[in-house]
């Protein structure tokens, strides 16, 4: 089990009802963690529409999670 902190923005933040949480997970990658959280909280965005950042850097969905990582799930952007 890894302990990581997860940050939510925009639609994910609203659907989760909070902007940040610390949790324990058996997921080994951002993709697996998102899928776990999506089922738990009913996120409407499918995983292929979400990118991930770890410790403020964009990462591959298959990157290995490590103890203490700060993970951000990034919905499609629509700036401007």
């Amino acid at each position, binding site marked *: 089990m890894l302990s990581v902190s997860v940050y939510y*923005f925009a639609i994910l933040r609203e659907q989760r009802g909070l902007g940040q949480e610390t949790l324990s997970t058996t997921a080994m990658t951002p993709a697996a963690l998102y899928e776990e959280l999506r089922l738990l909280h009913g996120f409407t965005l499918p995983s292929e529409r979400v990118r991930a*950042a770890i410790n403020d850097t964009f990462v591959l969905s298959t990157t290995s999670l490590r103890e203490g990582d700060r993970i*951000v799930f990034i919905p499609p952007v629509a*700036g*401007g």
Partner: protein
Amino acid sequence: MFKIVSNPIDPAAWQQTLTNVEAGACVTFAGWVRQHNQGLVVLSLEYEAYAVLAVAEGKKILAEAHERFAVVGIAAVHRTGHLQLGELAVWVGVTANHRDAAFGASRFVIDEMKARLPIWKKEYYTGGATAWINCATRGEHGGLGALPSS
């Protein structure tokens, strides 16, 4: 210079940061909250940013523009928070010796900002409805099933 700000953007002040008699051309882009989007009446708009990554990505975009175009200066700013109709959400300014580079770089910077900055937009409509505008602005959004684009 690239910034994410929560206070109103003063384009004149940003313009000042670019003043340089060596350059002969300046192109600016301003984007503000407009009243209609795809047929719906917009009352106001909220921008939310993942600020640390947005600033890093913004600086990367400006560095790329400096590599690609013969420009003298580039400044860009994006605002966050709850904006009313007519308020500036984004401003880009580019100075160059020739207008080709100034037009090319300013277009590149705003396009990349809209596509790459982790900033989200929620529209508030008449009647109380709201919507997160969650569409990628160019092609497929690289998601968790794909390689990240940067």
